[in-house]
């Protein structure tokens, strides 16, 4: 799965958790500074994406994910 496909699959989940439109979910966006997430919302998003992509993101890795782009890239590098 390439990053474009991952982004398309992740968009509705991220948008739903943050109550925003899907077209606001761009790779450049910072979850907390740009998209209105707080730390709980970020955990919630990561857990939902883990489920959708069938993977586990260890805490030490998830703590480093700050932007949509970082999230997509992490999934692309780790999804089986």
């Amino acid at each position: 799965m390439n990053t474009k496909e991952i982004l398309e699959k992740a968009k509705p989940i991220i948008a739903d958790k943050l109550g925003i439109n899907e077209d606001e979910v761009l790779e450049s966006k910072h979850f907390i500074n740009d998209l209105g997430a707080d730390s709980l919302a970020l955990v919630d998003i990561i857990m939902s994406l883990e489920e959708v992509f069938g993977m586990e993101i260890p805490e030490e890795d998830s703590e480093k994910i700050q932007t949509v782009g970082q999230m997509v890239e992490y999934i692309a590098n780790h999804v089986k």
Partner: protein
Amino acid sequence: MNPRRVAVTGVGVVTPLGSDTTLFFHRLLSGENAITRIDAFDTEAYSVKIAGEIKDFDIHPYVHPRDSQRMDRFCQFGLVASILCFEDASIQLDESEKERFGVILGSGIGGTDTFTKEVIVLHEKGPNRVSPVYIPKMISNIGAAQVAIRLGAKGITSNPVTACATGTNAIGEAFHRIKFGLEDFMLAGGAEAAINPISVAGFANMKALSRQNEHPEKASRPFDLNRDGFVIGEGSGVLFLEEWEHAVGRKAHIYAEVVGYGCSTDAYHITLPEPSGRYQALCMRKAIEEANISVQDITYINAHGTSTPANDATETKAINLLFGEHAKSIHIHSTKSMIGHLLGAAGGVEAVVTALTLESGKIHPTINLETPDPECNLNYTANQMVEAECRYGLSNSFGFGGHNYTILFKKVS
């Protein structure tokens, strides 16, 4: 500090008969029933299939979707009622006033629906899939917290949990916070949303609920001989309380004055009321004593009136015990006859009704009171509203566990 007077300067409700307080009160006066078959879930396997449901509730005019999905339904009801109430009070509070503004919003049951759903996730998908917002969505104090966040209240926030007496407990405590100088402004009441599978099953199996599934509009019949249990309702009711001189100073609309708060405990049984009614009478007496008036001054009671065989007979005994011959001349009614029993929110909604009744001189009927019960021998305002100028009104709430609470309101002269 001398005790201070306390004004009701805002009211807010979310009920099965709507969220517009004026319209809600008119619908009560016209005896409108809100009990229907349950739509929220499939009741096929349930012995009880009826409730006072809120069918068209929409949180989105009030709360961002990011935030509303973190709120259990009870919290959404409480927040909307509180927003409406605060708007109704039309007050602007500066930062120092907000430090003396508190919220006591109780829920008897809390986020049971959220709890149930996450327990299913735990069983089916394991602990790592339980939502990170499960706890702050489920805990019953979060209603008060969400209201404080929204309105900027920096004084006390608290969540009494006294089952079906929660709302009255909350308002009584809030009244004392202002009366004894601890806060100047309080938003107080109850919120509940327990029309969900686990709660309906639980209440049904303890034989507390009416099983008039074929005639939902007839199921809630307080003080009627053929009553067979309460009908579960949902929603929220809150008051904005304000130190009297401040309310007068800003020419606020004052619905009523809170003048007494009584509390007692049966210390008898986990669900049954103490059958003589003496501790419910004690509760009402304490409220009357606080106001320094006589029992003869009470001419109106918004009863707990649940439509269970035990409650209505015991509450009647308690009123007879306390008021003697005068009991027969008191106007009594049950709001639950139309909207069902809102559990922890009941006292909040009924406090709003009591204040509006004193103000308007219009007493809504107790509907479905068709066959008199010899054990219920008082004037319950059967089926037709009446007009009567009452100076003082009591609002009673009695909760599982034997928790008895009464608030005493005075008409503004």
